[in-house]
């Protein structure tokens, strides 16, 4: 679907994006992560053909992006902005027509989208009369109109109330079901865990993480399980240490012990087990860890396990 290969962009001799390579499969929700200033926006601007890479190629459905992205790609940028003095429906119709819809189809699609985001009664109002959250929904509609093949959302949830966050999530799922590929850039890691299949993390223009979200979490976690059970957990074979952890007990396993064998051992002891789960790190903790390592703050500590899916810089999958 989307293939970014060996893409580099430099400003004043400094590589903002350095030989980035990744693919986004059709119909998946893909997270683009990274700290502020990592190069995410530059990368997105190259995917949307707003900026041209110094080297490397970007293709969408096999075709070079340059000059041909047009209606196939839609972008909700982090910087929100609309024509404030225009009517809501006129703004949407304008975007629809720019994406190749005829006037009648653009109007119909605008009204349909406004109904979907619960703003139908605001269609004839000036944009500046809408609240910030409403304007954000209108801007999402400008991206959705014309049914793009690739939908790029940069911090779509910021500033929204929980109801509208849910609405945005629902829309992302609907679009994904309809075959739209979604590229999501956000700092809300819980949302990445909830809605994304795979993720790419860049830091200082370099790729530092790349793979399935669940796999990244698993590989970055300690080899441990969280158990809620009555009775003593000491002396379980293959368990290196036991410590209390948020009302549960965290059992750190030796390298050659599998979680399944520990569970079997606990059951064999006749313990009543209320819960048993892999002790995976939240994505947010992984993010902080990787960024700190990138800054050299954690040097000397044991390094993170290598994520198998992470390509070497310049490599592609």
């Amino acid at each position, binding site marked *: 679907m989307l293939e970014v290969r060996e893409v580099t962009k430099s400003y004043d001799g400094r590589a903002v994006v350095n030989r980035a390579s990744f693919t986004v499969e059709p119909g998946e929700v893909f997270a683009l992560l990274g700290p502020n200033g990592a190069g995410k926006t530059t990368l997105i*601007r190259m995917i949307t*053909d*707003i900026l041209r890479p110094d080297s490397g190629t970007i293709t969408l459905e096999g075709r070079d992006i340059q000059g041909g992205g*047009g*209606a196939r790609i*839609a972008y909700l940028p982090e910087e929100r*902005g609309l024509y404030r003095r225009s009517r809501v429906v006129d703004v949407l119709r304008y975007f629809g027509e*720019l994406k190749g819809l005829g006037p009648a189809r653009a109007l119909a699609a605008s009204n349909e989208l406004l109904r979907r985001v619960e703003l139908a009664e605001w269609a004839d109002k000036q944009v500046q009369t809408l609240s910030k959250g409403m304007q954000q929904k209108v801007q999402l509609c400008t991206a959705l109109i014309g049914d793009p093949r690739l939908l790029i959302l940069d911090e779509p949830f910021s500033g929204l109330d929980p109801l509208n966050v849910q609405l945005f999530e629902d829309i992302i799922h609907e679009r994904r079901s309809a075959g739209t590929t979604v590229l999501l850039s956000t700092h809300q890691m819980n949302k990445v865990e909830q809605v994304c299949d795979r993720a790419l993390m860049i830091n200082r223009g370099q790729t530092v993480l790349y793979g399935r979200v669940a796999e990244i979490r698993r590989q970055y976690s300690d080899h441990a399980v969280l158990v809620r059970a009555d009775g003593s957990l000491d002396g379980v074979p293959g368990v290196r240490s036991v410590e209390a952890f948020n009302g549960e007990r965290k059992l750190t396993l030796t390298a050659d012990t599998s979680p399944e064998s520990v569970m079997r051992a606990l059951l064999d002891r006749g313990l009543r087990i209320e819960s048993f789960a892999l002790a995976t790190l939240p994505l947010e903790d992984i993010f902080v860890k990787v960024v700190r390592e990138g800054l050299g703050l954690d040097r000397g500590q044991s390094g993170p396990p290598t994520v198998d899916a992470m390509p070497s810089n310049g490599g592609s999958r």
Partner: protein
Amino acid sequence: MSLDLQRVLTVARREFITTIRRKAFLLTLVGTPLYFVLVTMLSSGTAIKEGRNALKDFTALGVVDSTGLFKDADPVIVSELKASDNPFAKRSPVAAVVPVQTFRTQVRWYVDQPAAERALRSEQISQVLIIPQDYLSTGHVRRYARSGNLFSSADGRSVGRWLAAGLMRGRVDPLVADRVARPSEHEQYFTLDKQGRFVVQDDSREMANVFFPMFFALLLGLCLTIGGQYLLQGVSEEKESRILESLLCTVSPEELMGGKLLGLGSVGLLVVAVWLGLGLMVTAPALAMMQITVPPLLLVAAVAYFILGYLFYGSLMIGIGGVTNNMREAQQFSVWFTFANFAPMVALWAILSRPSGPVAVGMSLFPPTAATAMLLRLAVPNSNVPPWQVGLSMTLLAATSWFALQSAARVFRIGMLMYGKTPNLPEILRWMRQR
């Protein structure tokens, strides 16, 4: 630069419709000509009124004659204000029936200047005229008044005629004396027209020779400025509202720029058409009386220069809008180009008096001033601008416009997503070189 025409037209349509729906546009369209008419009427009305007042208030002249030449001069100065002295009223059909206004000024002789000055200070007389002993050989006279009148020299002319008549009095026939005072009052001046015929150059025609080219060039200059300002405003607003990034995912910077140029250029042309239409409607009777016709070729040249000039100034405005952060900042830069556009109006007299002189030719070939200056030259009724100069001027302007368009596209592409620091000149020049 590959452009999707459909997208260019969509952008152009939006820009056109959004602009003409604005209240500010209607205000410009209707308000600007009304403003000019009002200012012209007020200023001309004031000038005429001041001329009349100058004569009305000139009731008594104190004379200190050290030569003795004027002891038998007429003790009354009679001044006339004819309807024809009002350059605007005389085109009116009622001008013929407006009576000549006559004003009388008493002349009183004083023995010395202090006595005359005392009379002036106590408002017994309106002015004092000192005629020194060496007047005949030097022509030196001094006139004193309580306050000056910036707008009229009618009283000065009356005194001049009284002096001339006084010098002649008793020496020559009164008719000769009167003619000496007004030696060429009813002169008819003939010059060759473009068809090689001698035609009379009366006051009204002379005025038309000035106002007609000025009107045309001013109209062009205003339309270039207004079109440019709309472009500047459009780009600045989009940059300020941060909508550009959403737009640029769908439409290329070149398409966006092309659409804006087309849409807002059409707004400029609409303004020209309306103003020209209104202007011709209002001035048609006067133009017909003065036997002035607007040559079709002049209109063609006006449209061509508008398109070329608009491309040049429009590109500059887009580039400025792209590199600046808001409208206020953008206007600080654009004002210099507006000055360049109106520079030929500063050199108006040099161009009108010598349409083929070095100032006129230089300005009409120099691209930033070419459109307005060449139109001034072409509109001067009896001027003969060589066709090669028109061709060269258009070619130079077209080439410069193309270069400006290309450079603006590059600057716009890079600058439109940059916020915060305004780039300096070396940075802008570097952007212009980037491909």
